[in-house]
């Protein structure tokens, strides 16, 4: 599970109506978290949409996104191997907790049920598999969302202000959990946020889009 991955962002430039919105050049090594900060409207979400493969057609983007040396800029979202963690946990409301965890697991994963059970125990939710996600607390939902991401075995992870909707004590706890797990899994990660504390806890380099 800990094959080292690296993400290279080369000469990325995203523009809107001929005006450059985001310019970025960065290398993110295995287990590293790069934090991109910037005020509202500076193009943080746009950058992540571009990297994940669903940039709105109104934008123009140039540059290369290389994952483990392979240029993925032309691949469709589902074949990039890039996972996303949103502001909201977004657990599929029609699936059980276990169903959510299974959803992203690669087809060939052996012994899915056991891995789901183990993953739940891992985040302190043993026996929650059959629960309706709507009945979980905010913190529990966030943990399930994180575990779902990890079980989908991505090669890199993008985080769009994933802690901004949690209350203060939960936020600290979740940050620890998320960054520990990402590091453990050896995943290169890119975090965008407003929050300086997020950036500090991430412990990696910080790039400010506001120049």
């Amino acid at each position, binding site marked *: 599970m800990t094959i080292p991955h690296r993400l290279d962002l080369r000469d990325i430039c995203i523009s809107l109506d001929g005006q450059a919105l985001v310019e970025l050049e960065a290398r993110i090594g295995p287990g590293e978290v790069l934090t991109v900060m910037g005020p509202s409207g500076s193009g943080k979400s746009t950058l992540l949409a571009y990297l994940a493969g669903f940039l709105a057609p109104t934008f123009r983007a140039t540059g290369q996104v290389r994952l483990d040396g392979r240029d993925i800029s032309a691949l469709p*979202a*589902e074949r990039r191997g890039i*996972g996303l963690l949103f502001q909201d946990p977004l657990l599929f*409301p*029609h699936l059980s907790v276990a169903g959510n965890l299974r959803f992203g697991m690669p087809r060939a994963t052996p012994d899915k049920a056991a891995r789901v059970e183990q993953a739940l125990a891992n985040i302190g939710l043993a026996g929650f598999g059959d629960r*309706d996600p709507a*009945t979980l607390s905010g913190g529990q939902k966030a943990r399930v969302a994180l575990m779902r*991401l990890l079980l989908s075995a991505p090669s890199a992870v993008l985080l769009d202000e994933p802690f901004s909707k949690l209350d203060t004590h939960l936020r600290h706890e979740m940050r620890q959990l998320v960054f520990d797990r990402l590091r453990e899994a050896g995943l290169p990660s890119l975090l965008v946020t407003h929050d300086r504390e997020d950036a500090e806890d991430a412990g990696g380099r910080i790039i400010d889009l506001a120049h």
Partner: protein
Amino acid sequence: MMLRLAPVLLVILLVAPILAGLVMALLPAFGYLPALGGESPTLAPWRALFAEPGICRSVAVSLASGLVATAVSLAVVLLYLAAVTGSRLDRWVRRLVSPLLSIPHAAAAFGLAFLIAPSGLIARLASPGLTGWEQPPDLLIVQDPWGLSLIAGLVIKEIPFLLLMSLAALPQLDPERRVAMARSLGYRPTLAWWKVVAPSLYPLIRLPVFAVIAYASSVVDVAMILGPTLPPTLSVSILAWFSDPDLDMRFMASAGAILQLGVTATALAIWWGLERLVARLMGGWIARGGRRQGETGLRIAGKLWILLATAIAFVGIGGLAINSVAGFWRFPDALPGSFTASHWVQALPSLAGPMASTALIAVVSTLLATTLALGALENEQRTGRHPSRALWLLYLPLIVPQIAFLFGLVVVMEQLGTRPTHALIVFGHLLFVLPYVFLSLSEAYRRFDPRWSQLALTLGATRNTLFWRVRLPMLLAPMLTAMAVGLAVSIGQYLPTQLLGAGRVTTVTTEAVSLAAGGNRRVIGVWALVQACLPLAGFIIAIGLPKLLWANRRGMQGVP
């Protein structure tokens, strides 16, 4: 890829038959129909048409009933929306809208007829106390020469349609905020709604309003039940000429179909002029800045009229039920002296066939329509393209009068040698089911939070997995509702079934309407009640199935 073809197929399916039908009505109208010996262009069909006794009156009634019914329905809906305060009464009215919409036009028309006829429920309740009538009076209330009962019947059914369309459009206007803003400037709430919400709402419901005008000015089944008889409305006359055993009458019928197209176009043009006028008047009224004058009147009207219309519709259906089990029923008695199941027992053997046909046609056309609509919408999502402008074509079958192009279509089918079969009728119904299914599904589909799809894709799901395992299950409830609407539309169709089936395929609706002439209330009660209840089955499934499936998924309960 199949998906890419869906929008193209959709447009072709809707446009081609209408164009073909119109052309094949236009040619015979000028004497050209080789199959019947019409080889050279002539104006004879038109001369015959204008020589028909009462043709001017037919045209006038069609035109007037279309315009008046639309104006009244729209006024009642807007008055109601302006006066909504979220009271229990308001929510109650809102909840009744869907079942009311699902009642076929014919059943609602029969219900109204049974209510207002000289020996109907209202006369019975008022007699002899208020009226002094010991016998049913000799008055022509139903089928009155002015088309007033026809207009009333149309209004009852068009109110729920326009209300539902408005309720779907309103959220994007954020009416609460607008009204709050106007109230802070001193406007009373109802007046505020009229002045700051209504002018923006109207453009959003304009196409549905046009569809109502087209429908009301050319309707056949309601006019056969409630409309005048000597002469009948233009559309009913056309149908009679077309069904005449003398095939030469077909030339005149075709000219009539083109005339009907002109009448509906004229109604739309007059409405367009009225729009300008009302916009002027409203503009002046808003600019004058009155803040209180008329508030109470508007508020009371808003509650009163919609309540009256809703009550009439439901009491009418109740009247059908009573009639269907009534034994001996002396005149001023409010209720029958005895009840009997014999009308049902007698009707049962002949009900089975038409019911099976109705269900088969409705289910197949709805499934086809849903598949096509899903295909087009899914294609729109995958290509990330904006809804294409060609989609206003969806309204074409709702705005071109049915009677104007269905004849031509029958002629085309006869030329091609196609036999009247269930498949042909399914195809005819699809023209009208598809727009409604698409319109009601597209709302939910386009509003679906794009993050769900993005999330699924970043978890490695393919586009197909995304569709089958995320979008479809999460949109199950709106999809079933759209299907229920489709079923209701198909079940209520009279003219396409009658014409494309050449009278050989009977559904509950064609049977019920054909009973109108006979006037046997007990039998009509049975058939009309069955017709009214069939679509309800669809809505019950649409509401019940998701509740059952998602019983332990709280997150799926609130999803509309």
